């Protein structure tokens, strides 16, 4: 009897863009294997299900949950905790859940700044300066929407995570391989990797998978790729002065971007053993700059106009510092508000 009951599968999106879901569907006919081997019990993008249905499930009854997206508000956190409770295997799926990704860049700013940008900039027509309220009393009763947290957190900052599968989004061939593995485990033909493992990845860096030629190890200028024409198709992009993040980034994508002529921006996250992705890149970039005088070093570094964005594009929320000062310090918010008022007073 029990053999006919398929193990349960769930997928959820918290603060994310939806690209992870597309990547899963992008495994083409392999999706039929998912259907053949699993019962999909909760997957908001693909089927209708209510939170209360999940709440009613037995603890640990879902075998595999792929959780994508960061934790931006209390709804995200609630579902993360709920799915943790209901799932045997919880995978932080995609860069947002693993390390914050693009939504995590909001951790450079205070909530005030985020909302000012969202509701008050020139492209927004909001003459009454309306702001949604988390809780609002109406004659009919109180209406609630999720509380927006001061910072975005990664999944493992709110619940225990079994595996990490990075990528923005994870490459479809990697997703297919992981699904194959889980199915083999179900059939008793393979074993699960140790808890905490990073799955669906290579075990080296993007540079290691990159076929571009490396000759020199020094740089006298950084340039944006669009300012460099033509880009040499065979030589390492970093050697050409294009800030390429391949050296700190985990392999797994087959060096897709550098082989297509674009620099690696780091979506596969920190390579094995790297505690702080940005710190590793700072170290790497500083090593290749060919200058000894402070003025000259500053001039070369001016070629990277947004170093924090360059080095923490995907990993800010999961980095050692996790957020900029305005996001977590009240006086940061107060100071920015005061500055803005002064600016408006002019």
């Amino acid at each position: 009897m029990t053999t006919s009951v398929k193990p349960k599968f769930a997928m959820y999106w918290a603060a994310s863009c939806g690209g992870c879901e597309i990547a899963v569907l992008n495994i083409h006919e392999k999706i039929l294997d998912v259907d053949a081997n699993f019962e999909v019990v909760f997957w908001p993008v693909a089927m209708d299900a209510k939170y209360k249905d999940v709440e009613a499930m037995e603890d640990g009854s879902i075998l595999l949950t792929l959780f994508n997206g960061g934790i931006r508000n209390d709804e995200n956190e609630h579902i993360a905790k709920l799915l943790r409770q209901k799932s045997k295997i919880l995978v932080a799926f995609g860069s947002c859940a693993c390390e914050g990704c693009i939504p995590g860049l909001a951790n450079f700013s205070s909530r005030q700044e985020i909302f000012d940008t969202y509701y008050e900039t020139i492209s927004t027509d909001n003459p009454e300066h309306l702001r949604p309220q988390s809780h609002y009393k109406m004659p009919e009763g109180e209406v609630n929407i999720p509380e927006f947290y001061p910072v975005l957190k990664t999944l493992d900052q709110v619940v225990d995570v079994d595996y990490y599968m990075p990528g923005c989004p994870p490459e479809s061939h990697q997703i297919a391989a992981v699904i194959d593995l889980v199915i083999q485990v179900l059939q008793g033909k393979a074993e699960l990797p140790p808890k905490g493992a990073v799955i669906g990845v290579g075990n080296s860096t993007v540079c290691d998978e990159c076929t571009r030629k490396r000759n020199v190890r020094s740089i006298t200028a950084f340039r944006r790729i669009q300012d460099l024409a033509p880009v040499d198709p065979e030589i390492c992009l970093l050697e050409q002065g294009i800030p390429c993040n391949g050296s700190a980034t985990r392999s797994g994508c087959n060096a897709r971007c550098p082989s297509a002529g674009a620099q690696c921006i780091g979506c596969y996250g920190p390579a094995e053993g790297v505690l702080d992705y940005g710190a590793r890149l700072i170290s790497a970039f500083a090593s290749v700059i060919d200058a000894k005088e402070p003025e000259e070093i500053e001039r070369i570094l001016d070629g990277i106009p947004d170093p924090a964005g360059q080095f923490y594009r995907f990993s800010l929320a999961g980095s050692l510092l996790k957020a900029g000062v305005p996001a977590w310090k009240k006086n940061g918010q107060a100071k920015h508000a005061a500055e803005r008022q002064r600016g408006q007073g002019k």
Partner: protein
Amino acid sequence: MTDQFEPTVIGFTCNWCSYRAADTAGTARMKYAPNIRLIRLMCSGRLDPTFVFKAFADGADGVLISGCHPGDCHYVEQNFKALRRFILMKRVLVQMGVEPGRLKLLWASAAEGAMFAAEINKFVEEIRKLGPLNWGKDEGGRMKDEISSFITHPSSFGEEVPA
């Protein structure tokens, strides 16, 4: 508050010059602020920027990086690498809203004990003026407090909506 703020400062020194400078200061019984905790590396070139971010994340209010004078590094040019890392780290920290004065680079030879002690005192005073950084006392520390206090006193989305 009568208690004055005692900053925590982490200092990274290289084995060959700047640590000897601290030694020179010590053997000569020169006093310098006890706020600094010196960590000896073989060379300033060993300074992984991770160390600096970890120090701030774990509660340091200031970080000092010190090494041999340019041209004197015992591993030829590694202190120039430290200089480049220092400048780049500073740029990143400023973007994160950290006052640039919280990170300092100091060249010191083994003979410059007095200078080293004076510079440490000066740096500690500068950090004292900047006040605590309080990045977080434990995992996610400060931000966790911030979030829980926020949840118990929801302040809604930014400014109040005009009634």
